[in-house]
């Protein structure tokens, strides 16, 4: 799983200015300029991270554990010193190798993976923790407002250990949002919930963030979560951003082998460029990367791009079927031994050993150079 950038469409991911231009001249809430963090054995290093985020946008940092996504979040919050590069919050320099503005002066809200609700304070006092400069009456009304917004009315006298996981998460969220942070940071907010609860909370949270127009950075290792929540996704690997794009582009036009593999099931079919097209076992594909004649390349194909048609004279054979509820995922072996996957609606069932003909109907062709280089 730890492949690293295998180059290709790399250039258009990095300088974030091109992204900003797409949306017209809006002020960015947060900007990271080639940020690197000191290497420490216990924490993953990050190298040369640059991106910016517009007001009201939800940006997701997606990557496997140890890729440095939490380190980025902690650098933005001011917990992690920056070795080189700068971080700007609301156009103010907050982190550079020379100085680090203390967390409490940054006005960022943060929800930790385990929520970190103060166990010695009631729900209302937890939420009011950051409001100590306000008068008592103002504090109470702000807390009430927040409780309503997050559907926690009636729980304000409880202690954190008396709440369910979902309620705890909403308290943590309320505590972060009540101070009107410029930026909300969410560190794997759904990882402590069971899958059903997580998907419900995901919808609620998405609606809430849009309603409150909260600029948010969400860290996760779950691509479904990233697709459901994010306006844009930055896929990280080995401390570097591999691609920063909308969820749709990330899925359909992955910039690197790693991204393609990480955000969903994909097969990589080997091929060779001959006479301007890529010839593979599954047919010819357009040469979209201007590869030189004779070069070996791979074509990325997702299971939903492949259709199976039973055909007794065809050579590919179904070797396994996995029932997934709404669809069946078939594992098909090609004559060369190469294995590909195809999904069909769950109403049509083909048995193992069935000979099938494969139709590839990809809207985009994604090509990579032949071998994934090992992670640096």
């Amino acid at each position: 799983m730890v492949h690293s950038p295998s180059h290709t469409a790399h250039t258009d991911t990095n300088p974030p200015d091109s992204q900003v231009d797409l949306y017209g001249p809006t002020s960015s809430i947060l900007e990271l300029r080639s940020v690197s963090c000191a290497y420490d054995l216990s924490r993953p290093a990050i190298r040369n991270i640059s991106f910016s985020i517009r007001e009201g946008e939800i940006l997701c940092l997606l990557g496997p554990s140890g890729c440095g996504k939490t380190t980025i979040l902690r650098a933005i919050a001011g917990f992690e010193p920056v070795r080189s590069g700068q971080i700007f919050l609301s156009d103010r320099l907050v982190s550079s190798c020379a100085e680090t503005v203390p967390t409490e002066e940054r006005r960022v809200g943060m929800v930790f993976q385990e929520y970190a609700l103060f166990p010695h304070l009631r729900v209302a006092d937890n939420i009011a923790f950051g409001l100590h400069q306000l008068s008592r009456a103002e504090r109470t009304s702000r807390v009430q407002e927040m409780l309503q917004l997050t559907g926690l009315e009636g729980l304000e006298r409880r202690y954190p250990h008396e709440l369910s996981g979902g309620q705890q998460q909403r308290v943590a969220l309320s505590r972060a949002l009540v101070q009107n942070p410029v930026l909300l940071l969410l560190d794997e907010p759904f990882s402590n919930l069971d899958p059903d609860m997580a998907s419900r909370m995901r919808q609620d949270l998405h609606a809430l963030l849009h309603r409150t127009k909260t600029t948010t950075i969400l860290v996760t290792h779950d691509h479904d979560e990233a697709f459901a929540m994010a306006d844009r996704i930055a896929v990280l690997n080995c401390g570097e951003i591999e691609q920063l794009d909308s969820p749709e582009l990330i899925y359909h036009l992955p910039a690197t082998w790693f991204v393609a593999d990480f955000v969903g099931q994909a097969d990589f079919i080997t091929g060779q460029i001959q006479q301007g097209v890529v010839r593979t076992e599954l047919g010819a594909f357009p040469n979209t990367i201007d590869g030189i004649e004779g070069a070996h390349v791979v074509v990325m194909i997702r299971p939903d791009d492949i259709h199976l048609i039973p055909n007794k004279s065809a050579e590919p054979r179904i070797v396994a079927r996995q029932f997934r509820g709404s669809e069946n995922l078939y594992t098909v072996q090609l004559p060369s031994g190469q294995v590909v996957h195809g999904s069909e609606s769950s109403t049509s069932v083909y048995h193992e050993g069935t000979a099938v003909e494969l139709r590839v109907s990809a809207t985009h062709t994604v090509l990579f150079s032949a071998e994934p280089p090992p992670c640096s």
Partner: protein
Amino acid sequence: MIAVRRSSISALQLAVLASAALILLPLGYVTTLALSADPAVWQRLWATRVPELLLNTVSLAGAVALLTLVLGVPTAWMVTRIEFPGRRLWEVALVLPLAMPTYVLAYVYNYLLGFGGPVEQLWQLVAGPQARIFSPQSFWGVTLVMALDTFPFVYLLTRSALLSFNGSFEEVARTCGASRLRTMLSVTLPLLRPSIVAGVALVVLYVVSDFGAVSLLRYQTLTYAVFQQMTGRSDNQAASILSILLVVLALLFLLAERWFRRKSRFYQTTGHYRAPQRIQRGWLHTGLLTVCLATVVGLAFGIPTSLLVMWSLSQEAQAILDTRFFGFVWNSALLSSLAATAAVLVGLPLAYLASRKPTWLNLGCLQAAYAGYVLPGPVAALAVLVLFLKIMPFFYGTVLVLVVAYVLHFLPAGLQSLEPSIQQITPNLEEVARTLGLGVQETWRRVTLPLIRNGVIVAWVLIFLQTMKELPATLLLRPVGFDTLAIRVWLEASEEYYQLAAPSALLIVLVGLPALLLLLSRDWRAA
């Protein structure tokens, strides 16, 4: 098969009941003795001794508790939250004072702070030849000695709480706009409070039941008074009245602490956790920290130990290192081994049955065994003494009486390592052995015992070392002429023969050091 099982269980049950009786009978008898006393005796005591003794005991406990907070909490903070050269060394060194029995520290400070002692001479160089410092035989003297000796309890518990502290709590407070100071006051300290309170409770119990330091520094507390009533006046009835007061006082402290801890049980952090980062510090801070920590460790352990070594090397001390001295060593080792073995044998069935068959009877027996927790040494001695005088007077003056008193006194310490080690083995392991054809006893020998072996060894070693240091019960109950190391230290130190007391004292300190490793490795929140 079933018959075998039933008979062996009931044998165990009998052993448990006998153990509980062994503990409860002396206590019950002392209580009866106190309650059946003539009201005039109560009145006399109440009018003359009790108010002063209570005030002395409570104020000493309060002052020592405060001083241990000042010594224990900041030192724990320094070694867990700041990274500086030598940190690991100090982390261990701060526990060393626990190896020093209070009477040893008291006798060293009696010399250091005494009339014409080294500290006074230094002070006179600064403040003129007539200047005086506070006497070690005063409230402040005893407070200083007791605090230096017991602050590691607070240190250990605070340290382990800080080590398991979830750093996210502090970080989230910072994202809520709280400064470092406010974070510490409103998040870190409240979350550490249960552990700090538990540490202070240990200190208070220790101070209330201490005999060694107060007797050498002539400070009147309830515990010391119980001893005096038994020896000076041979008035066991007055002694039992004072004992009851003492036990009630200790129980009150203990209940207050339990109540406090129950209220904050949910403070435990759950789930995912991130250890707080240590702050890196430069040379200036390292220097300051080292001076602070060196002062504390030096006062509580370094200077006293160096003096003991120096005295032990003196000619007077060398002269007493003869066969008589090795006799004392042998007596100490013999008594300690007997007590440790007896306590483990008594404790094992109690802990085992309470864990495997938690009926109210078995749990009650286990709780009874913990009664020794609030029994100061002289009280345990008194209880065993009066009972033996009543029902088996021919055993009076034998080692048996002494061993029973030790078991009564130190059983709780042993149970604290026996109980968790038994609870950690799931009964499934024993049951699977039964399905593989092993009998009850075979299962015990081949499955249970090997698994709890470490817990048993730890319990044995702890009781052995505690008995080695024990002073008041040994003083009161020992057979005539049967002296141990602890007795020798106390007798010589009472006469201010500092050099003569040193070899025994040094030996006790050195033998006590391995126990500290156990303390450092054990989870102190469980205590």
